[in-house]
C-alpha cells in the first residue's frame, strides 16, 4: 500500500516537472531565469 502512495507521489512530481517544462517552452521562457521578452540580451 505504501508503495502505491509513494508511487503516485513520484508520478505526480515527475508529471509536474514535465508540465512545467512544457509550459515554459510555450511562454518562451529561457533557462536564464528571465523571460526573453524582457531580455534584450543584456542580462545585467
Amino acid at each position, binding site marked *: 500500500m*505504501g508503495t502505491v502512495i*509513494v508511487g503516485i507521489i513520484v508520478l505526480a512530481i515527475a508529471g509536474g*516537472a514535465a508540465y512545467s517544462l512544457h509550459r515554459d517552452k510555450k511562454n518562451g521562457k*529561457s*533557462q*536564464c531565469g528571465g523571460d526573453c*521578452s524582457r531580455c534584450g*540580451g*543584456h542580462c*545585467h
Partner: protein
Amino acid sequence: MSIKIALAGNPNCGKTTLFNALTGSNQFVGNWPGVTVEKKEGKLKGHSDVTIMDLPGIYSLSPYTLEEVVARNYLVGERPDAILNIVDGTNIERNLYLSTQLMELGIPVIMAVNMMDILEKNGDKIHLDKLSEKLGCPVVAISALKGTGIKEAADKAVDLAKKAATVTIAHSFADSVEAVISAVEAKIGSDVADEQKRFFAIKLIEKDDKIKDMMKSVPDVSAEVQKLEDEFDDDTESIITNERYQYISSIIHDCCTKSKKSEGGSVSDKIDKVVTNRWAALPIFAAVMFLVYYISVTTVGSWATDWANDGVFGDGWHLFGIGTSAYNDAADEYAPYDAEIKGFLEAAEEKAPDVTKEFTEVYDDEDAQEADVDAAIKAFTSNSAIKSLTTEVNIAGEDEDEELVNVNVATFETALEQEEPDPADYGVWVPGIPVLIGNGLDAIGCADWLSGLILDGIVAGVGAVLGFVPQMLVLFIFLAFLESCGYMARVAFIMDRIFRKFGLSGKSFIPMLIGSGCGVPGVMASRTIENDRDRKMTIMTTTFIPCGAKLPIIALIAGAFFDNAGWVAWSAYFVGIAAIICSGIILKKTKMFAGEPAPFVMELPAYHMPTVENVLRSMWERGWSFIKKAGTIILLSTIVLWFLMNFGWADGSFGMLEAEQLDSSILAAIGSVIAPIFAPLGWGNWKMAVAAITGLIAKENVVATFGILFGFAEVAEDGAEIWGQLGASIVPIAAYGFLVFNLLCAPCFAAMGAIKREMNNTKWFWFAIGYQTVLAYIVAFCIYQIGSVFTGNIHVVGLIIALLFVAGFIYLLVRPYKESDTLKVDMKKKAFAK
C-alpha cells in the same frame, strides 16, 4: 480606430524600460520577418486600441545595419500614427541626431527626455520649452526607471496620434542645401506621400542605396548631388550629417546649460585610470577572475559543497556546528580501537580468509540483528586460527606519534566492545535528506525498487546537482556585481585589441560575458553585432565560456581529481576564452569568414555602485532558475537514467538488476557502444561516455549522472565516497581532458535552440555544433595524449597524432591571410514590399 505608436531612440536610452512600463505584460515578442532582429509590440496599458511598437535601438536611419533598415522600413511602410522619441538627456546631442531624422518622416513626433534625474544630479539643465520651440514638437521629461512622466508622455502621444495634424518641420539646413532638397522633392513622384518627400529627398541626396527599394520610380538626382559635392568639397552623406549636427549645436546652446563640473576628475575616470591602464589592465582582469573563481569554487565552494554532499545529501550534519567538536573528541578517542580492529582483521584475512569473510559479512551488515552480530563475534574469536593470531598495528598517539601496538584476540575483543561514537548523539544533528527519506519510505512500507528509484535515482542525481547551489550563488553574486558596476564594459574595451587581431570587435566580448551566466542570452546578445559574419562567428563561439551549468562539472572535477585546487576552475574560464580567440583567428582566415572587422564604436557607461538589491536580485534570478532546472529537467533525466541502469540482460534474461550487475544494464550497453569513441581521450569507459551524453540535455546532468552511477556503486562496494569512486576510475589528466571536452562541445539543448534561432539557417546550425564538438574532441585528445607524457604513460600512436594536430593548429593560427574590404548587409527585400 486602432492607433499605432512607435517607440524610437538610441540604444541604452531607456526605451525598453519605458516599453515595459507602458505595456506591462501585454507584450508580444517575435522577430521581424526574414531577419533576426527582435520585434516587440504591445498594447498600451489602459488603452485597448493603442498598439506600441518598440523599434530596435538605432543611432540613425542610415541603410547600414539591420536594425536601422528594419526601423525605417517600418516607419515609412507602416506609417505609425505617432512616434514617441526617447532621448537620453545625458547624451542629448547625439540623441537629437536621430530625432531630426525621425521628424523628417512626416509623422507626428513627441520627444521624451529620459534620465532627467541624473541630469539634475550632475547640475545640468535642459530647457524643455525652448527645445520644443526649436524642434517644433512637444517635449516632456521622463524618468523611465523611476516611472515619472511616462503616463503623461503616453497620453500626449495618443493625443498627437488622434489629432493627426500635419507636421511642420522646424529644423533646416544651410540655404544651398535646402534649395537642393526642394529641387529633389519636386522630382519625386506621387508614389511618395507629401509629408514623406523630404525624407526621401534627403536619402536620395545621401546616395542611400536602399531607399530605391521603397520607391516606384526613382528620379535621377546626380546633378543635384554633384552640385552639392562641388560646393562643399565633400560627399553628400557627410554634408548632410554635418548639417544636422551644426543645426543641433546651434540650438543646444540655448536649450541646455551645463554645470561647471570638471572634465577628468570624476570617480569613474579615476578608477579607469588604473583599470584600463596600458600595462596593468590585462593582469588585473586575470587577477579579478581568478579571485572570483577562487573564492566561489575553492574556498566557500568546497566548504559548502562538502556540507551539501556529505551532510545534507549524505548522512547528516550538525546544525551550526553544535556538537561537532564534542563528536570529534569522541571520535579521536575511539580512533585507536578502530585501528586495532582494522589491523587485526587485515592480518586475519591473510591467515584465514574464509573465516574472516564470514565474520565481516555479518559485522559490516548494517541491518544485522545484534544477536547475530554477537554470535558471529563469538564464532570468529573462538576459531583456532584466529585465537592464536597476533599482529602489530600502527596507532597514532595523542602527540601524533605512531606507536606499534600488539594486538591479539583479547585486545580485538575489547576493541569491539567499544562503542563507535555516533555523531547523531552529539549536539544538534540534522539527518541527511537521504536518511530522512529512507526512514520515511521504510516506515510507510514502500517497495524496495521504488525506494531505489527515489533514493538512488532521484535523490542521488538531483542532490548531486543541488549540492553545488551554494557555490553557484557565490559566483553569481560576484558576476552580478562586476557586470552592474560597469567593469565588464571596460573589459570589452581592453579585449578589443586582442579581438581585433583576429577580426572580431570587442563587441563580441559582451555575449561571452553574458554567457558566463547562461549561454542562451549570451547567444542572443550577438544581435548587437551588425556584421553578419562576425555575428555568426560570435554565435558559434559564445558557448565556449563556462556557463553556470558547467560550473558544477568544473567543481566536481576539481574536487574529485585535483583536491579542489584553485587553478582548475580559473583555467576552465581561460580555456574558454582561448578557444574563442583561437577559433576566431582560425576561422577568420578561411574564406567563409574573412572580412573587415566591424567598427568598434562603443559607449562606455560611467561606473556606478550597484545597489545591493539589484545584485541580490540578479543572483537570485539565476540561482532560482538553476534550482528550478534541477527540479525539472534533471529530475526527469534521473528517473529515465535510473530505469536504464536498473534493467538489463543478466543471467540470460531481461529484468531488474542487482547493484553489482550495473555493467549489464541497458545504460551500460548503450554506453559501451559509445565509449570506444572516447577511449583515445583517456575516458573510454561507459559511465563517463553516458555522463557526457546526458550533458546535452542540460550540462548539470553530467554531475547528476555521476551522482547516480557512482553513488549507486556505493551500495555494491565498500561504502567508499562517491567522488572517491569517480576519482579512482580514470587518471587526473584524462579527467581534465573530460572537463575540457564538456566545456567546449555542443551546449545543452536550450542553448542549441538559441543558436539555431539566431543562425536562422539549419546548415549553419549544424556547422556550429559540428565545429564545437570536433574542436572539443581534438583538444581533449591532445590534452590527454600529450599530458600523459608527463605522467609517464605514453601511447606512441596517440602521441604522434596529437602532435600532428597541434602542429596543424599552430599552422592555422599563423598563416597569412588577406582581408576583404567591403561590409555587406544583406536583407530580404520582399519583407517590406508595400
